[in-house]
């Protein structure tokens, strides 16, 4: 195995955090013109914009650190599926409104803890991006928590359906708390966040909202892994990449 340089690890790390934002942001933008009401549509698009904005900052930093003259666009539009290291949770299809809310809730609860920790990174650029992002994901967490409570503690129909969303997406949450080689390497220097240490707080936060929502906290701990560590994605990822990258692949270098 070739030795992973710290510089390369930092490029991977920044890009990987960005991948989470870009892919879930892309998924949420698919709700455009389809949300249940105009206010909810604006809310989802605003969240998506924040997440894609965060991805842009992270990709720009990855590109600068890499020093090969690439830009944020190379990271978003010209990498292949296996180069994306987003957690699988971010790429699962939107499903119904409950599925989308649960996915955003799981991710926002994680993001809130993650970006709080990233604020103390020894890497000043990552710390700055962390501080900026933290303000935004706090709103996402509030928005998704309120919806989760409304659906869980709503009608029998909404309760049953959103419980199903939780149970079916649960297997994708464990991956968020696994460490990659790049993360372990950067953790030694105080640059990366130890995500394994975030899990207890995440569980507490999620359990607290589920209780308010009269929903049952899943007991199954089995986790589906692959996206974050190896770039092994669900069958849905290829379609996202195709949709997102079509213009740049078909018309290389096109701008508008």
């Amino acid at each position, binding site marked *: 195995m070739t030795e992973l340089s710290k510089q390369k690890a930092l490029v991977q790390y920044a890009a990987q955090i960005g991948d989470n934002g870009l892919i879930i942001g892309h998924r949420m933008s698919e709700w455009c013109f389809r949300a249940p009401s105009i206010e909810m549509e604006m809310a989802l698009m605003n969240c998506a914009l924040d997440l894609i904005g965060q991805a842009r900052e992270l990709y720009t930093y990855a590109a600068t650190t890499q020093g090969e003259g690439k830009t944020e666009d190379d990271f978003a539009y010209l990498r292949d599926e296996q180069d994306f290291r987003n957690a699988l949770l971010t790429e699962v299809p939107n499903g119904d409104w409950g599925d989308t809310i649960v996915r955003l809730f799981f991710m926002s609860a994680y993001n809130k803890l993650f970006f709080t920790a990233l604020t103390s990174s020894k890497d000043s650029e990552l710390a700055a991006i962390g*501080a900026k992002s933290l303000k935004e994901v706090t709103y996402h967490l509030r928005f998704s928590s309120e919806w989760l409570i409304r659906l869980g503690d709503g009608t029998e129909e909404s309760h049953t359906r959103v419980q199903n969303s939780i149970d079916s997406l649960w297997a994708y949450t464990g991956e968020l708390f696994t460490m990659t080689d790049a993360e372990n390497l950067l953790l030694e220097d105080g640059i990366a966040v130890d995500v394994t240490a975030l899990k207890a707080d995440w569980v507490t936060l999620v359990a607290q909202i589920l209780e308010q929502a009269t929903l049952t906290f899943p007991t199954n701990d089995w986790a589906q892994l692959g996206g974050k560590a190896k770039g092994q994605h669900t069958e849905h990822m290829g379609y996202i990449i195709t949709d997102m990258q079509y213009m740049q692949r078909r018309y290389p270098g096109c701008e508008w």
Partner: protein
Amino acid sequence: MVEAVASTNRNFDPADVWTILEEVKDPEIPVLSIVDLGIARGVNECEEGKLEIIISPTYSGCPAMYMLEEQIKETLNHHGFLDSIVTTQLSPAWTTDWMTEVGKQKLEAYGIAPPEKTTSNKSVLFGGQKKISCPKCKSDNSEQISEFGSTACKALYRCLDCLEPFDYFKCI
């Protein structure tokens, strides 16, 4: 005779530059300048006569940032500061505390409720939601319709007295 456009850069006086920057308005809220909003953070002279303007984005994905950069360069160019550069600075993260008092007054007159003065409690998950005063009739009897409004920096409210919906500039 028409006076020729300055062929050399003007002498650097920070106060002049700040005044010029007030001409650059936010494309979404055209009554506010980037100085009112606290987006413009610093003015440096990076080499003889060449300026560097430091800006901080309100939100990570704010689509106005690129346009603002171009407008800053163009405006400075027009005033004889040629080839200025604009640098984006993320840290410290932009906060509504940086909005000037004049900016808040202009915002309210424009029909958008300005952000609250205090910035504690920003990370509170629930509750602690204060009553926002209606920019039209000034009643505090309002309710939130949506956490998110027409742009990332705003939330949507409705006045329960005059019944007008209005934007609230979120406090972050």
